[in-house]
């Protein structure tokens, strides 16, 4: 008795407090899901609309002269890395950083505290505002048109479902022509295609950044809920096993004590 059961009791207690922690974090994540989902859908709506306009403009002949259409290859790369503000979200953050490692020469702009710890910066993922995105987009667009960067990408996490999220990279600048295009004949551009495109691109880049941040945030929350669910399950299993071992140790200690008493009494 004594030492062994005491150790086991302490372990049960510590696993139990971990279980409480994982349950609480899981609940916090669940409560954030609905809001995060709404924010993602809203930003996706806006990004979808502006993407359509920009894509149609990019396919027009006049816009081929735009600096945003210049394909300069894999020169100086600037990548916005979107990770979480906190850990304990399974492989969420590490998947993003693993993907970022594939671009060793790139200049990184971090969004989310975890990413900021590695790459520097101060953008928060949960409270990332459109004003911040707008300022970032203006800076990137002017650097791109000046030629100091050759391509701009975003590393974010795609939200596939509550159970699965995937880190991916999407290139937003330079613009590429797509095969699909709406019929643009008869549409007037004021003053002309090129100036409309040049005004639309910073809006488009900002819209894309916000949409990716919102999508990454819901992925983070979903990943955390899944991770906390399975951590909770494991903790429960561990407590069960420890409880069994504790009961056995206690029982054997009692049996031993009885044996000792019986032996001592000389019966």
């Amino acid at each position, binding site marked *: 008795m004594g030492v062994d059961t005491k150790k086991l009791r302490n372990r049960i207690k510590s696993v139990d407090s971990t279980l409480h922690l994982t349950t609480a974090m899981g609940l916090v994540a669940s409560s954030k899901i609905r809001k995060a989902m*709404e924010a993602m*859908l*809203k*930003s996706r*709506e*806006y*990004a979808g*609309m*502006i993407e359509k*306009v920009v894509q149609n*403009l990019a396919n027009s002949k006049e816009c081929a002269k735009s600096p945003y259409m210049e394909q300069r290859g894999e020169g100086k790369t600037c990548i916005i890395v979107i990770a979480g503000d906190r850990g304990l979200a399974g492989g969420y953050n590490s998947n993003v950083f693993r993907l970022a490692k594939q671009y060793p020469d790139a200049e990184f702009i971090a969004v989310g505290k975890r990413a900021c710890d590695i790459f520097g910066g101060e953008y928060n993922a949960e409270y990332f505002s*459109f*004003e911040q*995105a*707008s300022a970032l987009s203006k800076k990137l667009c002017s650097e791109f048109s000046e030629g100091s960067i050759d391509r701009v990408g975003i590393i974010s996490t795609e939200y596939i479902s509550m159970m699965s999220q995937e880190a991916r990279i999407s290139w937003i600048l330079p613009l590429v022509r797509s095969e699909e295009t709406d019929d643009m004949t*008869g*549409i*007037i*551009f*004021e*003053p002309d295609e090129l*100036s*409309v495109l040049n*005004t*639309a691109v910073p*809006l488009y880049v*900002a*819209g894309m950044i*916000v*949409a990716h941040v919102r999508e990454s945030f819901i992925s983070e929350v979903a990943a955390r809920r899944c991770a906390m669910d399975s951590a909770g399950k494991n903790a429960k299993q561990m407590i069960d096993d420890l409880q069994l071992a504790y009961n056995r140790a206690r029982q054997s200690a009692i049996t031993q004590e009885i044996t000792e008493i019986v032996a001592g009494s000389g019966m």
Partner: protein
Amino acid sequence: MNTFVLTISSPDGNIFQGEAVKLSVRGIEGDLAVMAGHIPFITAVKDCDCKIELSDGTEKKGHTSGGLLNVAKDSVILLSDCFNW
């Protein structure tokens, strides 16, 4: 009065979606108003006050900090980076 479907979209979601009679904004080339049956066109919008005339005769006023106006055959979309009523 003929009406058209107006959508005002910002990164915080659709601010307005519904039937409107007239939309007045300040385009990059000057003030403009869109009514039903307007020729399809796209222009950049400056930081300005917007006026929307609804089908019941009421007028709504808002402010956009710039954006893009996309007038299609059957709908008008104002993509605003920040819109307040």
